[in-house]
């Protein structure tokens, strides 16, 4: 799959506008293919559930930009800590500030088709490092 970087021009939304926007008829907030060319979806129901506690998901430009790219072209992928056979943690490097690397992290459930996004956020730490198997890319 060709990996190219792009940004959605969508503006950030207020929380109220966000919940209005995602209540549209279409049930999918994002539909794409991962680095193994398997279909991956992020449903609007799941997005609404997760956005309450994950402020990153209240920004639609994040969903259509970095989150999408982390699914399609991650820098590295670990098995999930809690469900290692059923879920994967995709990491995309964002930027390095003051020696600290920030990532986009997307948890993808792979135990059904299409694969689906469980949640996503922007940590500055790789929780799975040294704990679960690195299954794609290089974590360095």
């Amino acid at each position, binding site marked *: 799959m060709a990996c190219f970087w792009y940004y959605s021009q969508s503006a*950030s939304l207020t*929380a109220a506008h966000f919940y209005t926007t995602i209540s549209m008829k279409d049930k999918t907030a994002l539909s794409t293919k991962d680095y193994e060319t398997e279909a991956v979806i992020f449903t609007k129901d799941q997005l609404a559930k997760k956005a309450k506690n994950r*402020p990153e998901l209240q920004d639609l430009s994040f969903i259509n930009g970095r989150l999408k790219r982390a699914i399609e072209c991650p820098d590295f992928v670990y098995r999930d800590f809690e469900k290692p056979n059923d879920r994967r943690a995709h990491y995309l490097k964002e930027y390095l500030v003051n020696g600290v690397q*920030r990532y986009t992290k997307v948890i993808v459930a792979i135990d059904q088709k299409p694969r689906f996004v469980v949640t996503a956020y*922007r940590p500055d730490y790789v929780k799975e490092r040294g704990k679960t198997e690195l299954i794609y890319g290089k974590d360095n």
Partner: protein
Amino acid sequence: MEKTTKSILDLVKEIPNAASEQGWVFTLDKDEGALFYGPKIAPKDTELFQVSDEYAVYLDKKLHPRGVVIEYYANNFVQHHQEFKKLNQEFFSSSKDSIVLEPKKTGDSAIFKSLLEKTLISDAVLSPVRDEVIATK
């Protein structure tokens, strides 16, 4: 570029006051396995900073805490902090995917709140992943 720095310990010590002033609640997301301690709707314009291997905090641009996330709460955090086991069963044994607990001023939920806040501080003292956080404008 203007830099603001704050020690990990200083920011973690702000959590109890921030929680009381902003009415933080506990949300156990069983699907994700994470315990969130923050406002019912997480505020925007915050960034996640890891404090210890166990948890991270959402900080606003002035580096004030706006929420706490304990990833893999039941399968990791509680295993390392057995004192939570009994209270955890009391509050979070429902089969629902997401359980919200609003701490009260007295009773077991107040004990849970106090115990968690103390544990967050002790983790930051004993096993921080860094000494300070830096925000740039």
